[in-house]
């Protein structure tokens, strides 16, 4: 069997989510080819990076304006045009591929398996349902498999390969949608889904200013990404793309520091696979303490600056 892994990249560099999805793709047992579709020069660099990953036997490159802005229709058409040669299609469950892969699956008359967390057998996978409150084991009866991978549960594949790079056969752009613009938050902080450390704030932060005054300095001291609970995002204290939780991003860093977050099921579903969880909350009965490795019952407005300062003394 041969698997086509569709690469996540930002049109300059390959994203870590590709390395993680590669681990899942390799576990299916067949050869793994990687498709890098994008617009502009950066696509080639991303393809070269993909060719170096351990376990990749071929890289296909599709470069063209239709792939520059991740529009679903042309990318799905491209993957379907390549489908004849593949038994499985794997992509990380990022917003790009949550958008594209079901379109591919329907065009192939396949029922997609969304956000797998484990490969049990080449046709059998585990996936969370009900916001992670239950884990389902499903076996796909379709001839071709279409799978998205929850990247936080797979280790990143390393380098060590030297795959050939070829141009992918082109596909016509259905021309159904056009790109108008984007607002991408530019930040020097690591992205949430690949950050080793995350500091998140909840409703108790009370304002956007307090996020900037308390959460961000602590995050910067730790070289951490900044997250937020849904309550904090809904209240306007933090931007949408900071949201950690079932309806936001699912993360699993080495260290997750939850500040002023009560621990709603919604939020826990997005961070409970973190290796070490620290909770700072003045309510000692907050549910977040039931999952935290280290709980500090304290007023965050005193504890967080103290923690930031203590880390500074450690030379952080």
């Amino acid at each position, binding site marked *: 069997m041969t698997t086509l892994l569709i690469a996540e990249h930002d049109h300059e560099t390959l994203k870590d989510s590709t390395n993680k999805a590669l681990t899942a793709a390799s576990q299916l047992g067949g050869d793994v080819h990687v498709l890098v579709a994008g617009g502009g020069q950066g696509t080639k660099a991303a393809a070269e990076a993909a060719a170096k990953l351990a376990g990749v036997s071929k890289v296909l490159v599709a470069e063209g304006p239709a792939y520059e802005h991740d529009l679903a229709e042309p990318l799905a058409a491209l993957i379907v045009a390549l489908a004849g040669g593949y038994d499985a299609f794997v992509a990380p469950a990022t917003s790009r591929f949550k958008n594209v892969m079901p379109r591919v699956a329907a065009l192939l008359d396949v029922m997609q398996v969304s956000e797998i967390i484990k490969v049990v057998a080449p046709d059998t996978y585990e996936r969370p349902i009900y916001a992670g409150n239950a884990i389902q084991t499903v076996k796909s009866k379709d001839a071709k498999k279409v799978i998205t991978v929850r990247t936080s549960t797979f280790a990143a594949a390393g380098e060590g390969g030297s795959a050939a790079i070829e141009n992918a056969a082109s596909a016509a752009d*259905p021309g159904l*949608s056009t790109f108008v613009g*984007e*607002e*991408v938050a530019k930040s020097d902080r690591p992205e949430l889904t690949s950050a080793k450390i995350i500091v998140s704030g909840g409703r108790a932060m009370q304002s956007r200013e307090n996020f900037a005054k308390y959460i961000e300095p602590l995050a910067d001291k730790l070289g951490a990404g900044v997250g937020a609970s849904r309550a904090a995002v809904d209240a306007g204290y933090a931007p949408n793309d900071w949201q950690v939780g079932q309806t936001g991003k699912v993360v699993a860093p080495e260290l997750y520091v939850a500040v002023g977050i009560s621990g709603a099921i919604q939020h826990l579903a997005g961070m409970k696979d973190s290796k070490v969880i620290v909770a700072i909350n003045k309510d000692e009965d907050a549910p977040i*303490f039931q999952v935290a490795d280290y709980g500090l019952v304290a007023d965050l407005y005193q504890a967080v600056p103290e923690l930031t300062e203590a880390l500074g003394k450690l030379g952080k």
Partner: protein
Amino acid sequence: MKVLVPVKRVVDYNVKVRVKSDGTGVELANVKMSMNPFDEIAVEEALRLKEAGKATEVVVVSIGPAQASETIRTALAMGADRGILVKAEGNVEPLAVAKILKAVVEAEQPGLVILGKQAIDDDSNQTGQMLAALLGWSQATFASKLEVEGSDFKVTREVDGGLQTIKLKGPAIVTTDLRLNEPRYASLPNIMKAKKKPIDDKSVADYGVDVTPRLEVLKTAEPAGRKAGVKVKDVAELVNKLKTEAGVL
């Protein structure tokens, strides 16, 4: 322009689901059921389009057991004009749902279909994209803003790292994200009025769609638990534990 809104009956989002001890699924007996929250946002958006004079009729469709008519009534009480219930027993997967919806779309000819981005029971996040594929229509998932431009649409989408705005050639499929709007509550007079609104009864057989599941569910289990750790007395102890015990600093 007619707007079609598919809605799903799911376990209420406030209910803590329990996995059955024999591993065959989650406990659904005597559990409160409601409209999928993302679908409520879809209904609300369609109603706002109608109130703004952009849409002429809002039709709600649900695929599921007879009780799914209650979910349709909820949408009618919010203000939708009429409903279609496609009766189906057991688990109908997103691909089969999309095939049934395709047939409904072909019969109803809407200019726009608005769906929730995912149902909070199976968390698949597939149906809208699949429907768009089967119809050969444009799609915009995870919408946080929707504007009508003639027969086309401008949609702002929530994507990793920020927001993306795209233009869709109509007819189109849009799926809702949390921040598109805040759904209204149905008023008592509207709940009474909704009882008189028509719901068309259909069955899967009327559409000739094979709904045999493609995924066989082998097992449903509780997730691995996480134990509560220790409480530390102050910041100094926290830093010390993180450094020496957890080794993450």
